Structures are given as structure tokens and as C-alpha cells.
């Protein structure tokens, strides 16, 4: 990985293209599913989290679940093999089925 060294005049951190607070879904996706995992003294099993709906739980749980099952399509470039109808959606469906999670993708089923 190239370490491009730059002089940062202003980092200007803040959220959202148009200001306003970040979407909760974006925050949870990052804070609960991304970032270095260090098992401290108190372990959190994220699969315990019910959250708002089963769907939200699925979003949060999916990455770890999938990793457990050796499915890691999101880590490569999924688009190289996602042409045609059964691309990402199809793979997600299979992932969800494999994870034993209920299926429903907002009426998108064909």
C-alpha cells in the first residue's frame, strides 16, 4: 500500500455532503461492523443485538457471519462477476439463506 505523504492544511472533518447529522445506518455500519477488533475484557457478541428490525440486525451481522462461512465477496471487486441478473442481489440472497436469515428484499424478488 502506497503511503502518500501529504501536508494537510485543513482536515475539515464533518458529516454529510449537505451538512446535518450522518445517517444512523451509516454510523452503525461503520462503528459496529468495521474497525479494528480487539477483544477486551468484555466481549460483545454483535449477534445478540436485535436493533431496530431483523433486517438491521442482518446488515450488522452479515459480515461476521459471512466470514465465519468463508464468504468474503465484498472484499474483492464484486463487479467483475456481477454482470447479468444474478449479481450482487443473487449473492446476497444466497448469503442470507446460508446464514439462515429471513428473506425479504423490499419486493425486489423476481
Amino acid at each position: 500500500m502506497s503511503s502518500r505523504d501529504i501536508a494537510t492544511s485543513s482536515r475539515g472533518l464533518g458529516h454529510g455532503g449537505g451538512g446535518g447529522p450522518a445517517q444512523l445506518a451509516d454510523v452503525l455500519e461503520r462503528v459496529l461492523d468495521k474497525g479494528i477488533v480487539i477483544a477486551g475484557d468484555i466481549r460483545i457478541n454483535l449477534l445478540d443485538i436485535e436493533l431496530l428490525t431483523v433486517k438491521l440486525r442482518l446488515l450488522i451481522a452479515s459480515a461476521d457471519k459471512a466470514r465465519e462461512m468463508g464468504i468474503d465477496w465484498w472484499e474483492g471487486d464484486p463487479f467483475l462477476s456481477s454482470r447479468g441478473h444474478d449479481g450482487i442481489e443473487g449473492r446476497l440472497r444466497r448469503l442470507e439463506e446460508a446464514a439462515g436469515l429471513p428473506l425479504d428484499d423490499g419486493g425486489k424478488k423476481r
Partner: protein
Amino acid sequence: MSAVATETAFYAYGVVASGQRAAVPTRAAGAALEVVEAGPVAAVASVVSLDEFGEEPLRENLNDRDWLERHARAHEDVLLAVAASADVVPFRFGTISRTADDLRALLRDREHALVAALERVRGKIELGVKVWVDEARLRRALAPPAAEAASATGRGYLEARRAAQREAADAETFCADLVREVYERVAAHAAAAVVNRPQPRELTGRAERMILNAALLVESDATAVRDEVDVLAERLRGFGVTLEVTGPWPAHNFVDGADDEA
């Protein structure tokens, strides 16, 4: 003497290089911050009560939507406050150690990986890039104008059905190509890029479908990506396609793999 002292623990948000520890603010998002240093890296932490963050209470609190939202946002806000003046490697939510010494031990165990992650994110921030599509508008934009002339005869009905199927297939192909093109074009401006699963409608609350949910690791001055997105958005406006840039975020998506579950 009889007052019950609440037991406490250290909740760590992430790490900075020890050399930058002076840049860590003393307070952020309503929390007093402590810096726990171990060699080349230093954790940014808060003292929390085990009444709230102990194993049992935490399990319950994680299921409390408001509690979770408040603390997830605080976690993020602290990291952003630190990131304003130092390079920071974010931890996942809920990295809790009983004592500062326990936390130091964890840092020492992973010193190599943490230093490598700090090097990777140095001078960079994370942006989110999303692509949304209004599927009805996209189909209309792709449909040839003549398709309106379906007659009431059986043959006309079949033709209309076939046309509708073609349009749906065209829309899918269009989206697949579009997502790849957008991803490649924005990723070209990034030091690293990943694609995450698009968020479901139940979560976004939007009528449009999210078809790309990418994260980019970019130089702190992210204008190249924003300019690229503006150009693409302009071109795609007539197709019911919307592009969105979120962030800057702490580099959550680009520190993984530096550590495995211990």
C-alpha cells in the same frame, strides 16, 4: 465508607501514534478523554461505569435503540474530534478493558498491526460513495418511446409483456454497468477502496434502491472524488440515478485485517 463505589473500565475508541498524543483533545462528545500509551501507540479512551458497560448491562443496552444510537454516535464523534488533529485508527464499538494496564497489554500485543494501520491511514480520511436509483424513472428513461403503443389485442398484450421484461433486464444491466463504472472512477482517486453491501430500504427509509455502497480512503483534501461524483451525477440525472458522498469518516473500512479476533 458505605458509599458503593461503581466499578469502572476503560472504553477505547481507537489509537493514535504516541508522538501525536498531545493533539488528542481532553474532551469530546461529552466525554472526558484519557490517553493510554504503550510504546509507539496510544489508545484514546474514556472511563465508563460497569453498571452500563459491564457484560450483562451491555447486552441489554445494545438492544436499546436509543442507547445504541447515542453511544454509536458518541464513538464516532470522539474519533472525528481526534481525527481533526491526529491520525487515528478506529476500534470497533465496545473495546473495553478493566484497567489501563489491561488496555496497555492489549496494545502491546498488537503493536505491529496497529503501527501498520496508522501508517496506512496517515494523512487520509474515509469517504462513502453511494449510488441510488429510482427504478421506475430509470425504466422510463431506457424505454423506447414507441413502447407506449401496445394494443388491446392478445398479441399486443404479449408484446407489451415482452417489452416490459426487456426493460427490466435492460435496467438491471444498466445498473450493473453503472455501479462498476462509478466505482472504478471514484476508486481511481483513492489510495484504497472497498465495496460494502448496499443498505436495504428498511434501513435507509428511501424509496430509491441503493445499488452501490462504497468506501474510499482518500487524501484529506477529497475534492478529486467530489468533482468526479459531480460530473457523474450531472450525466446521470435524467436516468433517475442519484450519487451521494458521505463523510469524512474515520477510516473504519481500512484498518480491518490488522487484527484478528484474539
